């Protein structure tokens, strides 16, 4: 894996986009996470912490994209 490929994987993991496993009905891990080494995973975690702080500050209601994703999922599934 080249350093550019590794960098792309790290950044891909920082998104809040996650799918629901059709069998367990639980939130699935990002596929790129499983392709990263331990140090890459640690970097992705730290970058995500910073990114969510920025997102909360830029959102009128103080929600990060994680919060938006979760609340959006609940609202869509509401009867």
């Amino acid at each position, binding site marked *: 894996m080249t350093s550019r490929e590794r960098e792309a994987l790290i950044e891909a*993991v920082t*998104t809040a986009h996650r799918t629901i496993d059709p069998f367990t009905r639980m939130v699935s891990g990002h596929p790129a996470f499983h392709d990263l080494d331990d140090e890459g995973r640690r970097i992705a975690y730290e970058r*995500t912490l*910073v990114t969510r702080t*920025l997102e909360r500050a*830029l959102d009128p209601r103080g929600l990060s994209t994680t919060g938006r994703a*979760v*609340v959006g999922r*609940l609202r869509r599934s509401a009867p």
Partner: protein
Amino acid sequence: MSAVDLDDHLPAIAAGDPDAFERWVAGAEHPLRASLRSFATRVDVEAVVQEGLLRAWNVAPRIVRDGAPNALLRVTLRIVRNLAIDEARRARSVAIGDDDLDASLSFATFAAMPDPLLREAIHRCSERLPPRPRSALDARIASQGAEHDRTLASRLGMELNTFLQNFTRARKLLADCLRGRGIDLGELA
């Protein structure tokens, strides 16, 4: 950052009010994520946090307050920790002890809310971003976690790798700008 009792929202959450849950999530997400640092190499923390937040919504009606603040957050800290342990064991069969449970629960003693001055500084710095990094940052925020980066990149007319590079650049430029204002994002996170 200031200490708050997020249980102020609990009665409305228990009654099924998603707006109240949204306000609770705004304060609870950061302590939940920070509590999982020791799992960062073993599980996808983002997925665990999202699953934990969804379960918090479901358990909220059954929470009995005990007089201490942040009962729902404390319960959710246990939920995400147990989810992380289960996932780590499933992935690698790594034995995990209970020694960090107290450390994890210590995150319930505070709930982080964005400082108004920090928000203002981040807004100012984001306005100074070059167009392409700014568009990548805005696209992820606007998508609210509902769309794959490939979709966002395509909408912006970028290759996926270019989109990711622009997002990296946006965060770095924001961090540099904030550092110039005496704010270290690493310390805040």
